[in-house]
C-alpha cells in the first residue's frame, strides 16, 4: 500500500506513524511510504485520508510483471537497445533501423488504465 503525502502535515504524520507503528510501515522515503497491506495498514491510511482529504494519496501496488503487462516488442526494444554495439546511438535511430517501436507511439499507448485492478 503506497501512501503519498501532498502536504507538510501529512509528511510529518508519515514520520510519526513510522515511529509509533514500525511494523506497519515497510519503508518510508521522505513523503512516500509503503504500508504493510494489512487491515491495520488500511486503518491507518483511511484515518489519514479522513483527516487530510486530498493531501493523502493511497495506491495499491503490485509487482511489475512485464510478461503479463508489456508487449513483446517493447521488451525486445529494451533488451536489444541495452545490448547495442555503439553506445552513442540514440534509441530513435536504433529503433528505425530495426523495426522496433518508436518513442512517440510508445508514449501514446497505455499499459493499463488507472481504474483497472
Amino acid at each position, binding site marked *: 500500500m503506497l501512501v503519498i503525502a*501532498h502536504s*507538510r502535515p501529512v509528511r510529518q504524520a508519515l514520520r510519526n506513524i513510522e515511529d509509533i507503528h514500525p511494523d506497519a510501515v515497510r519503508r518510508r522515503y521522505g513523503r512516500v511510504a509503503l504500508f504493510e497491506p494489512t487491515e491495520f495498514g488500511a486503518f491507518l491510511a483511511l484515518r489519514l485520508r479522513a483527516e487530510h482529504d486530498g493531501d493523502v494519496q493511497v495506491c495499491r501496488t503490485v509487482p511489475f510483471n512485464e510478461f503479463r503487462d508489456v508487449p513483446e516488442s517493447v521488451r525486445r526494444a529494451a533488451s536489444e537497445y541495452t545490448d547495442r554495439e555503439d553506445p552513442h546511438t540514440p534509441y530513435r535511430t536504433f529503433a528505425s533501423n530495426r523495426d522496433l517501436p518508436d518513442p512517440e507511439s510508445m508514449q501514446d499507448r497505455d499499459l493499463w488504465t488507472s481504474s483497472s485492478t
Partner: protein
Amino acid sequence: MDIVLNVAGTVRRGRAIDARSLDLGLDPQDIVESLRDTEDDRLRSPDPGPVHDHVGVIQEGMSISLHAAVAAAARSVDAETPYDAEIERLTEERAAIEIESVSMAEARSELADVTEDVQRLREEVARIGGAVETRRSMDADPTTAEARLEEVAAELAEAETRRIAAEQRYERLQQRAAVQRDRRDRRMELGDRLENRRRAARSYLVEHHYPSFRQAIEAIPGRARPGDRPSAFDGDAVTAALAIARMAEVEAPLVIAVDRFSGAEQVADLLESPVMLLDG
C-alpha cells in the same frame, strides 16, 4: 485598551493586577483561555501575540525554547530581517493557490459495486449456460433454463454498460484529482521554502538581539549566565522567561505565577509589561 478582570463580582483593572489572594479559583490556563477567547468576558484585554506563546504564562517548572523566544521578542519590537520580503512573497504565493477537493469515495464505491455485479452475473450466466447444455444433452426440455439464461444475459449486458460508465466517471475524477495534487505539491514546496526562510530569519534575529536579552536578564533577580547565544544559556527557564518578557513589547497581560515578587506593580515595572499575578 484597558485591561479588566471581572470574575464572580470581583473587578480589577489596569496593567498590574494582583489576583493572588482574591480566591477566585483561577489557574493560569483559565487566564490564557480567557485571553484568547474574545467572547470570554472574565478578562478583557488586547489580544495576546506570538510572545505569549513563549512567556504568556511564567511559572516554576516551565520550559522555554530560548532561540524561538528571543526571535519572537525581537519581532515584537518590530525587528526586521533581510528575509522578510521573500517571506511575505512566499506567504502570498502560497495563499493564492486554490485547491479543490475532488470527492472520489462515491465513484470508487460505485465502481466496486458494479464490478462485483458483473462478476456475479458472469458466473451465473456460465452456470445457467451449463445447465442448458446439460438438459439438451439429456434430451430434456431446456426452455425454462433458456429463458432464464436470456434474462440473466440481459442483466449482465446492462451491468457491463454500468461498469463502463463507472470506470469513465472514475477516470475523469482521477484526472481532476491529479491536477489538484500538482497544486498541493506546489503548496507543499512553497511551505518548505517558507519554513526555511523563517528559520533563517529567526537565526538572524537571535544573532542581532541576543545582546538585548543579555541586557534584560541583568535586571532580573535570579542566577543566570546567558552566554553569547541561546544554546550557551545556563540558568533556569523562569529567569530566562522574565528576561524575554522584559525585552519584548506586549499588550495583553502576562500571567506570572512565581513566588519571587511582592507585588504586581513591582513586576509590571520590572518586565515593562502588563501582568497578572496568580499563586505559584
